[in-house]
């Protein structure tokens, strides 16, 4: 409670309480996450309708995606979800060092995910497959739609990972500066919730894009 300061020398028992509402802060985070769910929900809906309409073309196009790199990124994201959860558990158990370590590992995993994504996209782009490319426009509609959705959905997801890295780095700073402590770690919990949502979205993106046979 290092924020509580005693003010007023004349009135010895006047204590200024810092107003803090942890449940309210978390509720705000959950509400924000639902807007995210609906944002991605609209894209999953578009995907579902077109996959229903062009199932054969989607199957052919999906076979070109690299299942290995997709699986690797799944493992990376799942593990990063574990480390951010461990970081919160560590601060609850007064283990600041472990908390900082786990949060740093999470950031490293997030960056690894983005590096893999970069190589994956570059391989596709080098094969001439990117929105409005000559190669792609020469293909049937279903395949154009598949790759369009692939770039938009994994791209927006990647943007979320990037924002997650920035948010997690801020949390790391707060943790080191003792702004996140044993009795005040809601910030870290909320950042964790955001990070788990990014993981959740990937849990659905992965089978829908990489595992169509």
């Amino acid at each position, binding site marked *: 409670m290092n924020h509580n300061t005693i003010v007023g020398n004349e009135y010895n028992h006047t204590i200024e309480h810092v107003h803090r509402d942890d449940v309210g802060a978390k509720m705000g985070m959950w509400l924000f996450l639902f807007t995210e769910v609906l944002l991605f929900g609209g894209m999953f809906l578009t995907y579902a309708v077109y996959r229903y309409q062009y199932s054969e073309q989607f199957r052919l196009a999906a076979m070109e995606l690299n*299942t290995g790199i997709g699986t690797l990124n799944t493992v990376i994201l799942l593990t990063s979800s*574990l480390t951010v959860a461990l970081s919160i558990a560590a601060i609850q*158990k007064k283990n600041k060092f472990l908390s900082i370590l786990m949060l740093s590992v999470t950031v490293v995993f997030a960056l690894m995910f983005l590096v893999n994504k970069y190589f994956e996209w570059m391989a596709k782009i080098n094969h001439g497959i990117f929105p409005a490319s000559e190669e792609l426009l020469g293909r049937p509609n279903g395949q154009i739609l598949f790759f369009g959705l692939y770039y938009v959905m994994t791209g927006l997801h990647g943007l979320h990972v990037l924002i997650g890295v920035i948010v997690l780095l801020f949390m790391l700073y707060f943790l080191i500066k003792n702004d996140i402590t044993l*009795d005040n770690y809601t910030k870290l919990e909320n950042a964790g*919730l955001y990070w788990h949502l990014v993981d959740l979205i990937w849990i659905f993106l992965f089978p829908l894009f990489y595992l169509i*046979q």
Partner: protein
Amino acid sequence: MGNKKHIIGYNTYILVWLSLLALTAITVSIAGIHLGDYTLLIAMFIAAIKSALVINIFMHIKFDEPIFKVFLALSGFTLLIIFVLTFFDFIYR
């Protein structure tokens, strides 16, 4: 304020993580077998189990305020309605 919180131990998190990895291995291997239309169904079923694990344990919803569960149910239900109505329109157009 802080003493009412439910704290999950490291071991539980690691156990959940191992289950998530196992489910990923299962979903990848099943995708290699030719099961036709069932592939998507099984993949979505496994993704749903993985989500339930992440939401309940990692996101702590199992031990949090009941109102968050209401929020979650509401957003899930909204998505379901949007999907059902869209497909109803699309298929019977």
